[in-house]
Every structure is written in structure tokens, then in C-alpha cells.
């Protein structure tokens, strides 16, 4: 949950740290996604169900992770 305090902190951070943090968040989001796509597949989720959970199409999630 994003609080006012966090938003203030984000604004006051120097750009080198702030921009790196944005990149790190993107990399982290990709890792979290890949980790949980893998778990979902192991638990028998279809590509369609995974796509719906991520808010993307079945095709795009399959193209990214499918064999």
C-alpha cells in the first residue's frame, strides 16, 4: 500500500537512486511474474487463467513463457 509518507520519500530521493529503483522494480516485477507463472503451471492453471490473472492475453503469456 502506497502511503503519503512513501510518496514524499519517492519525491525527495535523488534521481540516480530513484531511476535505478524504477529499473529494479521492473526487474523485480518480471521475476515475481516468472516465479508465479511457473507455480501456477505446476498447479495446473491454463495459459488463459494465467493471462486473466495478469490482465494480459493468453497468447502473450504463452509466447513469453510457453514452450
Amino acid at each position, binding site marked *: 500500500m502506497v502511503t503519503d509518507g*512513501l510518496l514524499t520519500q519517492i519525491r525527495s*530521493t535523488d534521481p540516480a537512486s530513484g531511476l*535505478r529503483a524504477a*529499473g529494479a522494480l521492473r*526487474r*523485480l516485477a518480471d521475476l515475481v511474474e516468472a516465479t508465479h507463472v511457473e507455480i501456477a*503451471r505446476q498447479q495446473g492453471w491454463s495459459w488463459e487463467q494465467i493471462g486473466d490473472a495478469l490482465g494480459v492475453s493468453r497468447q502473450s503469456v504463452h509466447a513469453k513463457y510457453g514452450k
Partner: protein
Amino acid sequence: MFERFAGSTREAVRVSAEEASRRGDRRIGTDHLLLGLLHDSDSAGALGVSLDAARTKADVLDRKALESIGIDLGGYLPQPRLRARFRAQSFTSGAREVITRTLVLTTGEKARRITPRHLALALLERQQPDPAAELLTELGVDRDDAQRRLTGA
């Protein structure tokens, strides 16, 4: 662009693309060129750092940056076996500058081949803000020392 690259320099650039993909970056940056260069044991020796140490420090820099905006990951470290399939292919503008610089350094020495040593020297010249410069600082590399070792001066 890579005609004058020695085989070992080409290899360093090739593995730097892998380092970028490994970190989840779409473009090859100066930090990835540095990681790629460290696959070469002679270069790692000249810079006095190991590939593992550099990879760890790159993660440390990410964590510090996240903490600076108030995000503490604690011990959370997702490590998926299943990888998104994409390959980093293009270079960042900083990485292109480094590649250009290697050629300038090579012709300055009247050398024919662009060697990993030229790549190391070009990376040591980077000034912050730059990902390779940031990583070298975090690794505690003494640039002047390393430069002297690499030029034999």
C-alpha cells in the same frame, strides 16, 4: 562495428548480452559490458574483482535504490527456473559510447585489434551517472591503479 574486435573481445560482448538478459534488462548497458568483461579471467585479474562479486554488488545497488524510495524487500528473492524468453540485443547509448571509445584507444596505440584490455580501459573512463561507473565504485576498484596496470605505465 565489430570487425576489429579480437575473438576474446567479441566473446565479452556476447556474454554481456547474456548478463543483461540474466538481470532482466532489455538493452545491453555499460554495467553489462563490465560483467561480460569479467568472464575473461585476465581482465578480472587486472581489475582485481571477480564476476560473482560484481553480480552480487549489482543486486546490492538495486536493494539500496529500492530502500531509498522506502521499499525493503527483506529476505525476499524470487528465483524462477522458468525464464521469460527474450534476448537483450540493442546497446544503450552509454554502451555504444564505450564501444566507440575502444576503437579510439586502439588506434591511439596503433594497435590493430580491439582487445579486452581496451574494453576495460574504456569502462574505467566512465563517469557517474553511469551504471558501470556506479558498479566500479561499489566494488571499490581504484581506477587509477587499474588504469596503470592495464597500460603498463
